């Protein structure tokens, strides 16, 4: 069937997942366009990993409609599983086998023709910058190398969509940047669509569009820039002893909304550069240890929209592996 190029590659409609009487995903809907990098942003326990598990067929939802590449499909259908690449949050390589062996097994699993396997695996090892360590057992590779290998593995059957669950968790800043440079190159060169779930605002900022998810519900869905401009003003952070008292004081004296986050007072205002001197003047010397001013990022957008930070465990993480929906 000819796929309509204008239509999204993947449509998820009214997805509902329950664990017992708890509703973990409550009517979630979103679309991923062709060649788009789409992010699901939310704290642990918000339902992103559950969404990921439903898409990869690891979890059966209570309800939901799915369209993939122009056809209605069942959740976790083989037609979807065969054509997507998956990067799991937890390691999914055989640690006793080498990188090359892992990729060869994946190529075999996905029906890559025998004649193409060796060359394709070699090319992916190059892409992952692991060609020189391809024959060492995976357990001897560093965490960052293993993550690169996981990404390479997900591409072995040339999928149309790659689904990634917290792909850069545990990576340092440099590896993070390189991973995303690589993903953007894949999108550019191969037209790959990418669906990534993350709780890192800097990761969401690399997406074309993101869906903010909180408590199993879609809070907002737009480009990172549009979401950022939807929140006006500046973000001022005050660091000082007894943050609660400091917040109360600032609220009372200046009439601004102030919250305590991580032992610091966070407040939003229209003109931070005008407010800061007034606060500093008003407080006794030494009361403040540091003052910070920034434009709202996606973390602040999330906070403004949900009243929760991305580091919050909104509620205990869903015990996915024990799920019997």
């Amino acid at each position: 069937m000819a796929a309509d190029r204008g239509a999204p590659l993947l449509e998820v409609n009214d997805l509902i997942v329950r664990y017992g009487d708890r509703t973990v995903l409550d009517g979630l809907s979103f679309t991923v366009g062709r060649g788009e990098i789409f992010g699901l942003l939310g704290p642990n326990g918000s339902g992103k990993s559950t969404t990921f598990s439903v898409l990869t067929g690891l979890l059966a939802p209570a309800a939901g409609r799915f369209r993939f590449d122009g056809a209605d499909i069942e959740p976790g259908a083989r037609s979807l599983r065969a054509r997507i690449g998956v990067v799991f949050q937890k390691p999914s390589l055989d640690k006793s086998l080498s990188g090359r062996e892992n990729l060869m097994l994946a190529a075999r699993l996905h029906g890559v023709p025998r004649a193409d396997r060796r060359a394709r695996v070699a090319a992916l090892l190059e892409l992952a910058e692991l060609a020189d360590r391809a024959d060492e057992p995976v357990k001897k590779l560093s965490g960052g190398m293993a993550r690169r290998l996981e990404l390479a593995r997900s591409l072995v059957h040339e999928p149309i969509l790659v689904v990634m669950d917290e792909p850069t968790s545990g990576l340092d800043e440099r590896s993070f940047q390189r991973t995303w440079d690589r993903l953007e190159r894949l999108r550019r060169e191969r037209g790959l669509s990418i669906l990534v779930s993350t709780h890192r605002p800097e990761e969401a900022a690399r997406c074309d569009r993101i869906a903010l998810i909180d408590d199993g519900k879609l809070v907002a869905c737009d480009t990172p820039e549009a979401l950022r401009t939807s929140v006006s003003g500046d973000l001022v952070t005050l660091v000082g002893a007894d943050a609660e008292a400091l917040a109360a004081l600032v609220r009372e004296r200046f009439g601004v909304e102030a919250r305590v986050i991580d032992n610091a007072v966070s407040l939003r205002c229209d003109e931070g550069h005008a407010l800061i001197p007034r606060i500093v003047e008003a407080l006794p010397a030494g009361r403040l240890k540091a003052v910070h001013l920034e434009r709202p990022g996606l973390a602040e957008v999330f906070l403004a929209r949900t009243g929760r930070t991305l580091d919050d465990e909104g509620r205990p993480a869903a015990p996915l592996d024990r799920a019997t929906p």
Partner: protein
Amino acid sequence: MNTATAAAPDTTAAHAPEPARLSAELATIGVLWRRDLVRFLRQRSRLVGALAQPLVFWLIIGGGMASTFNLPTAEGLGYMEYFFPGILVMMVLFAAIFGTITVIEDRHEGFLQSVLAGPGSRGALVLGKAAGVSSVGLLQAATFLIFVPWAGFQYGAIDWPLLATFLVLGALGLSAFGFALAWFIDNSQGYHAIMSILLLPGWVLSGAMFPVSDKSPALSAIMRGNPMSYLVSGVRRAFYVDAPPLGTTVGSHLAVDLAVVAGFAVASLSLATWLCYKRR
């Protein structure tokens, strides 16, 4: 898909089509089978241990029991000979236990995740894993056959097709049963507990160490209800060209042993597949 690709070659040109269903199933079975075999053959220490442990068991327990073992229905039957088929079944059982306990971790934080999310079905996953684990157990049991002469048997007197049939069916059944337990319990400590209260006693009460005796009706009933008894019985039959010594088998006839062992394999594979679909 083709027309769309032609219209805009920039995006989907490189993407592979979906493989046919049967080849996806066969590939899934093949990948899991190969993986367990490669892992086993790579670890030399595991190879040595896999042979040394049953040998020590056979020599120590066999040696200890030799002087007291006396089966009235089979005068002159030595214990080393009696115990040998049971040791082969033990090897297959241990391989099944240690090969499937890893499923618990592998499924949540390991390779199996990628197979679950891959193009094959859960039925293929169960078959592939059972085939891999069984092959490891069968390789070990086959190696142990070098001790056949010390048990008092002759290579020429062994019914090889029968031996292979029972060992293969038994290994598949026990592997699939272990898989079902691992999938259902989903917790290593729990699996260890079941191993020590169900699987190991199950082997002891299979006729591997002592024959069924009607002196204790309760014990006899347990042994007759235990599928592993029919496996030990069938393996024992393969070592005797005529009939095995009287009183050393559970099934009254070869067909009974074979039917129970084959039924156990089919039931275990079905149970494992059903659980694998049911409890994601």
